């Protein structure tokens, strides 16, 4: 690291070129805040501006594809294909979140007087996710994680007059603050052991020197507390059912895809780079077995607890815990095939989960309820919406011909041929997927085979825009299930992570 000021300034100037997408998001954030102050009619203009901003940021991110893999900003920030893949994912999730917010009655004019800040905070959250995916220093990891967390606390409690929303937000911030406290304590221990905060330097130090194994294990477990809370895996999952149920549904959708993906991006980078699975030295914090345990419990608890839920949002929360388990299976293989499968599955998960939540929003707009028992007879009353929901649930279960099937298939095949433990985990994964069939199909069962209590059969279709968006997501879910090669290749080319230089 340079020591004199002119050299540092020179380095920062050089790094600015690698920071254009983030700068563009920051500018968009400021623009939205300003527009919120000057405009009178915000409900259409601000989402449109946000979408255009996301597209422009996407263009700058696309230009990063040809950039050399390198660290920038005094080794705080990395640009590599791995980060770029996740940036596209976050932009996609953010754009979908903006689109589904526009249609939500929950966040409509009746309930929320000022919506401008909502979009600004959403943009800040996307910015935080960008930084999470490319952080290469523990300082940057902590700050990026907190940027995402604090923004999501605000969004969760955005419905100020609803007790549920405030309560979810309070629970979220308490769990979040404790987990990030645990994480930063673990980071301080790692810093004490190695004297470094940069993850590449930590790896170098650990492989070259003898480090106290017990302390390193403890530190890694504490750091895992922070990551585990972000990805919503057992035993750090307690917040997620309550937050998913209480938060406005568009926010739930964005939390379940965006912050989970960001957590995985940071977790993969941290554990692959800083604490390699097979270090050259004597020492090995055996995180593979540890992750196997977390993944196993997440799959079991998530799928079995979901059976007893009657609130659809809550059920999807438990399903997202189970999905964190499946994704961890891909992480713990610790090779490129597994990482590639995780990236593909996260992209697939984004499409199908946002789709499912969007349909939940559309139904709640009409019947004012998220309870599965109120979904009776909807197959006749909202045919297109019900069909879309069924497709998303098929995909979440992991049945062909949907993208969820391909994702699960890739994860399970990555586990094959690696030993009995991995094979057992893959088998348990398949079996728990079969369990998930039971609770997912409760919804189509109610929609198609049961009559609503009052016998109402009047159709209540949503607007043309809503139908188009639901159909678009449905086509993506099936389309990527049939023609998955481009996405799979993109994931394959993006596993290249900057390793030690």
């Amino acid at each position: 690291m340079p020591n004199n000021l002119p050299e540092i300034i020179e380095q920062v100037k050089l790094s600015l070129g690698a920071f254009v997408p983030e700068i563009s998001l920051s500018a968009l954030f400021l623009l939205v805040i300003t527009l919120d102050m000057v405009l009178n009619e915000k409900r259409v203009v601000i989402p449109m501006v946000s979408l255009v901003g996301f597209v422009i940021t996407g263009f700058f991110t696309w230009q990063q594809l040809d950039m050399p893999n390198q660290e920038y900003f005094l080794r705080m920030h990395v640009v590599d294909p791995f980060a770029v893949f996740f940036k596209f994912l976050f932009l996609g999730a953010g754009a979908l979140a903006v689109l589904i917010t526009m249609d939500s009655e929950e966040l409509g004019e009746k309930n929320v007087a000022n919506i401008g800040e909502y979009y600004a905070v959403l943009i800040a959250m996307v910015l935080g996710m960008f930084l999470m995916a490319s952080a290469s220093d523990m300082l940057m990891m902590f700050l990026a994680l907190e940027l995402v967390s604090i923004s999501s606390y605000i969004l969760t409690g955005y419905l100020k007059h609803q007790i549920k929303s405030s309560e979810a937000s309070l629970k979220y911030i308490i769990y979040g603050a404790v987990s990030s406290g645990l994480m930063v304590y673990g980071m301080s221990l790692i810093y004490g052991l190695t004297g470094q905060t940069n993850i590449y330097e930590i790896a170098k130090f650990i492989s070259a020197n003898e480090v106290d194994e017990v302390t390193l294990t403890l530190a890694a477990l504490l750091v895992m507390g922070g990551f585990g809370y972000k990805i919503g895996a057992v035993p750090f999952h307690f917040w997620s059912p309550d937050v998913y149920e209480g938060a406005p549904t568009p926010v739930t959708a964005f939390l379940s895809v965006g912050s989970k993906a960001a957590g995985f991006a940071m977790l993969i980078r941290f554990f692959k780079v800083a604490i390699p699975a097979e270090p050259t030295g004597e020492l090995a914090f055996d995180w593979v077995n540890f992750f196997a345990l977390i993944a196993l419990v997440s799959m079991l608890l998530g799928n079995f607890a979901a059976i007893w839920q009657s609130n659809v949002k809550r059920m999807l929360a438990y399903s997202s815990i189970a999905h964190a388990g499946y994704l961890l299976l891909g992480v713990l293989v610790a090779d490129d095939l597994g990482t590639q499968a995780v990236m593909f599955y996260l992209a697939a998960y984004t499409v199908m989960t946002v789709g499912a939540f969007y349909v939940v929003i559309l139904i709640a707009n009409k019947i004012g309820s998220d309870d599965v028992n109120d979904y009776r007879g909807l197959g006749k009353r909202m045919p297109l919406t019900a069909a879309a929901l069924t497709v998303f649930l098929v995909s979440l279960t992991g049945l062909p011909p949907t993208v969820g099937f391909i994702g699960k298939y890739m994860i399970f095949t990555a586990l094959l041929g690696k030993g009995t433990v991995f094979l057992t985990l893959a088998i348990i994964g398949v079996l728990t997927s079969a369990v998930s069939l039971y609770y997912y199909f409760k919804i189509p069962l109610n929609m198609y085979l049961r009559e609503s209590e009052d016998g109402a059969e009047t159709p209540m279709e949503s607007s043309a825009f809503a139908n188009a968006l639901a159909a678009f997501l449905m086509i993506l879910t099936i389309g990527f299930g049939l023609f998955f090669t481009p996405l799979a290749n993109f994931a394959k080319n993006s596993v290249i992570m900057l390793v030690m230089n």
Partner: protein
Amino acid sequence: MHIELNHYLWLSAFMFTVGVIGVLVRRNAIVIFMCVELMLNAVNLSFVAFSHFLSDIQGQMMVFFVMTVAAAEAAVGLAIVISLFRNRQTVNIDEINLLKG
């Protein structure tokens, strides 16, 4: 007595544990936030101690950012408590139990 690195680390671990226990047993949301602050300050202490004994500046840099984040978190946290109090007239988390299952 000469004060060594270990003394700081034990104090920091003790403060951190007190903070964690406080979060688990206290029922007042405001007190819980205070306990979280205690946890973060324990972290700061261990960073500063390491930084001093390793003769390295990076640890102290972390402390500044941890303090800033703690302040931001407290601001948002108190805002959430206020919005909850307007709806429920309580900050006791045992009475805040609408969401469960």
